């Protein structure tokens, strides 16, 4: 029984499929969140070096990983949309951008809040923080380019090009910033690598990472459904859905 995957490439069938998947991901995300927070706050011991402040790691690391991972996924869908001219993949890329930008902002916000007690300042020109900031600019560039173009077909393609050019540049930017940081400051600001993690800390963090995965999938599918509606509002199947009031 070969599932005809192409059926889901059409916005109409994907719309209903996404509709069914969202509640599942949302529930799993919430469950993992509760477990992760419980482990993070009640099971994980106090860190001998950083005291309690290290508990920010349970949202800082997932946010940072998600911000980078979502950019690559966005560039992947944008590339597919550009290559195969499938409108749905470009819609997916457009739907991923805001969540990715949000995670980048959260990574920066929690990073600086964690940095204050540890390094004494809100912002340190550390290589990772700087490349995270540049990643935020890439996201904002992608979203503002798409917002500036009215015709959605052109917006998808233009966004795809800037996303692909961006994803090629991410390693270059990261290494040049890494190199730049080591040249200028040397190791004056000793940025602790991920602290040698007690097992409970690690499991707590990983549970939070998976929670952030589930959450992102749920939110992105929810947003992609809205984008599908926005773009297909003139079609018959949307009118029919509206008739049944089951939108």
């Amino acid at each position, binding site marked *: 029984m070969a599932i005809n995957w192409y059926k889901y490439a059409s916005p109409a069938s994907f719309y209903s499929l996404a509709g069914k998947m969202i509640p599942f991901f949302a529930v799993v995300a919430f469950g993992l969140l509760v477990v992760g927070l419980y482990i993070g*706050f*009640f099971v994980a*011991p*106090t860190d001998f070096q950083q*005291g*309690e*402040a290290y*508990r*920010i790691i349970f*949202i*800082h690391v997932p*946010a940072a990983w998600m911000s980078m991972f979502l950019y690559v996924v966005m560039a992947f869908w944008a590339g597919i949309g550009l290559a195969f001219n499938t409108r749905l993949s470009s819609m997916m890329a457009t739907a991923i951008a*805001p*969540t990715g930008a*949000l995670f980048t*902002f*959260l990574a920066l*916000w*929690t990073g600086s*809040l*964690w940095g*204050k*007690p540890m390094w004494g300042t809100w912002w340190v020109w550390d290589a990772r923080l700087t490349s995270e900031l540049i990643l935020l600019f890439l996201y904002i560039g992608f979203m503002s380019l798409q917002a500036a173009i009215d015709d959605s077909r052109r917006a998808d393609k233009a966004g795809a090009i800037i996303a692909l050019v961006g994803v090629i540049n991410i390693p270059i930017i990261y290494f040049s910033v890494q190199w730049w940081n080591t040249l200028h400051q040397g190791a004056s600001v000793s940025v602790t690598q991920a602290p040698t993690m007690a097992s409970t800390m690690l499991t707590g963090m990983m549970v939070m990472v998976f929670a952030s995965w589930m*959450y992102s999938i749920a*939110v992105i599918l*929810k*947003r992609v*459904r*809205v984008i599908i*509606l*926005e773009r297909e*509002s003139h079609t018959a199947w*949307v*009118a029919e859905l*509206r008739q049944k009031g089951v*939108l």
Partner: protein
Amino acid sequence: MNWSSWSEFFSMGGYGVYVWGSYFVTFACVIGEVLLVSRRKRTLIKRDGLTHKSNKETYSVRDEELNN
């Protein structure tokens, strides 16, 4: 169980401001994002619903004029 009392839990070993500051903003952004998407959908449905109904009325009026 690390915390003996709730107040100790909230003080978070003196780092409460930073820990709760970051957690609060994170959850505020997460909930905000979900609300934004659903609000975007609601305005979309309202807008389309309106145009759809009003379209029907204007078209029906125009068709009658054409018929007679």
